[in-house]
């Protein structure tokens, strides 16, 4: 249950975002984009935090309560125990991501419909006016509205959206696995959480830093290069999961995905 408070906060956040954006921008396409951007940001934060917090204490708690002794005293291979714990943690993430995706799609759809019907109304009025007094200026407004409508349609719920959700979930799965692994030898829960966040942070930042470094005019010295490669091997590249920026901008997935 504490997860569900998170979910509640998540939906409240989207709702608040939807209502607030209208005050900041009149551009309907932008409204939807910002809405998606904020939702994915929230979802990604939720999953990252949850992947770490939910898995960090699973095994230490079993050890502390000695439940682990009764479980491993049954003919259960240790790997199965670890894997079962991991799947349990991931199931919670999977369920909450599904709920969040449904909520997001629903909000997005409703907002899109509302904006489209506003546009439609405007277009009807404009068309009537254009019929009564044919002139270049009014037609231009109408064309603009048509373009707006088609770009609005592209911003609704789509399969690309789902791909971003999958990427977020995959990232959570990798992070959860790392956290669970650290928790098996960590001396405290805090240590596990800190290490997991550091791994995530380094893995998230490192590719960006290295890219800009490599493209700098001085280049990189041999030793630093070695260091970077070592970091690259140890820390997973969390940028690989970062489809969100592109998809929010309305890009569709490159074929081959």
């Amino acid at each position, binding site marked *: 249950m504490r997860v569900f408070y998170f979910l509640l906060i998540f939906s409240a956040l989207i709702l608040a975002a939807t209502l607030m954006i209208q005050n900041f921008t009149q551009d309907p396409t932008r409204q939807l984009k910002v809405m998606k951007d904020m939702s994915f940001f929230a979802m990604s934060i939720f999953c990252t935090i949850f992947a770490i917090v939910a898995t960090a204490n699973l095994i230490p708690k079993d050890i502390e309560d*000695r*439940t682990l002794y*009764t479980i*491993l*005293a*049954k*003919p*259960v291979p240790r790997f199965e125990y670890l894997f079962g714990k991991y799947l349990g943690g991931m199931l919670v993430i999977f369920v909450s991501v599904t709920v969040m995706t449904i909520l997001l799609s629903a909000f997005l759809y409703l907002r899109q419909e509302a904006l489209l019907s506003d546009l439609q109304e405007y277009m009807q009025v404009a068309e009537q006016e254009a019929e009564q007094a044919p002139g270049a200026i009014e037609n231009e407004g109408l064309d603009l509205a048509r373009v707006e409508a088609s770009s609005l349609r592209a911003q609704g719920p789509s399969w690309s959206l789902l791909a971003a959700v999958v990427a977020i979930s995959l990232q959570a799965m990798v992070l959860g696995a790392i956290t669970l692994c650290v928790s098996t030898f960590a001396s405290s829960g805090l240590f596990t959480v800190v290490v997991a966040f550091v791994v995530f942070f380094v893995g998230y930042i490192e590719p960006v830093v290295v890219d800009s470094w490599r493209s700098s005019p001085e280049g990189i010295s041999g030793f630093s290069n070695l260091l970077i490669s070592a970091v690259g091997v140890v820390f997973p590249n969390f940028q690989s999961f970062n489809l969100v920026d592109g998809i929010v901008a309305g890009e569709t997935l490159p074929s081959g995905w």
Partner: protein
Amino acid sequence: MEPAVDIQDLTKVFKLPSLNREQVVAVKNLSLQVAPGEIYGLIGPNGSGKSTTMKVLLGLISATEGSTAIFGQDSRKVSSRAEVGFLPENPYFYKFLSGQETLHFYGRLGGLSKKEISERSKELLALVDLEHARDRRLSGYSKGMLQRIGLAQALIQRPRLVVLDEPTAGVDPAGSRKIRDLILKLREEEISVILSSHLLEQVQEVCDRVGIIFNGKLCREGPMEELMAIEDQTEILLDKAPAELVEKVTALVAEHEGASLIRSGHPRTTLERLFLEETSGDSPDTRS
């Protein structure tokens, strides 16, 4: 026939996570066997290595030296755990599960089918007298009830050996009597039991054989009656003897050269005396 428990020269050293490489020798060169159908009591003060021995036997921690086996199967193999049930010291289970669900969970871990579990858990809930609490969450169970659901959990896959670590610790006298009766029922079903305790009266009541462990070493071991017998002493237990008869006997003993009367009065638990004799000295808990 293969022994239910076979521990050979077991030594367990814990390395403490400190800079000066401190070590604790929890168990030292311990060997013991438990025959099929036998009830074996491991007694010793706190910190003497009882729980450590049991954990190695169950493959929960690894031995530093020596080997342990259950019905001939090395404890390090997962399959050795198919025929054993374990009740750890002060066990906690998942508090959010009910008694029934707890048995279901452990039944699945033990490889039983759903149908087998529902039959078996009905049987066991009746055996441990928890039918009235089957749908209650464990968070509302008393200490004695937890211990009994723990015992039921240990028995779920019909193991031929049960390992009980201080099964009556922290349980009130009535509750611990119930647990004792359950152990006696296990004997009827020819299930081997190895249990640890420092409640000596109970050990005396249920065990066929006991081992006294102190500072990680098995100092004395043997069948109950043998351990109790003090070879160079003779006990005469008189029933309804009047005071003057006791006086006569005392006088007779005094006449005899070399013999002496140590004590006369009402008989007491002798295991307790033996226990104190073997384990007097520095207690591991008071060592720095």
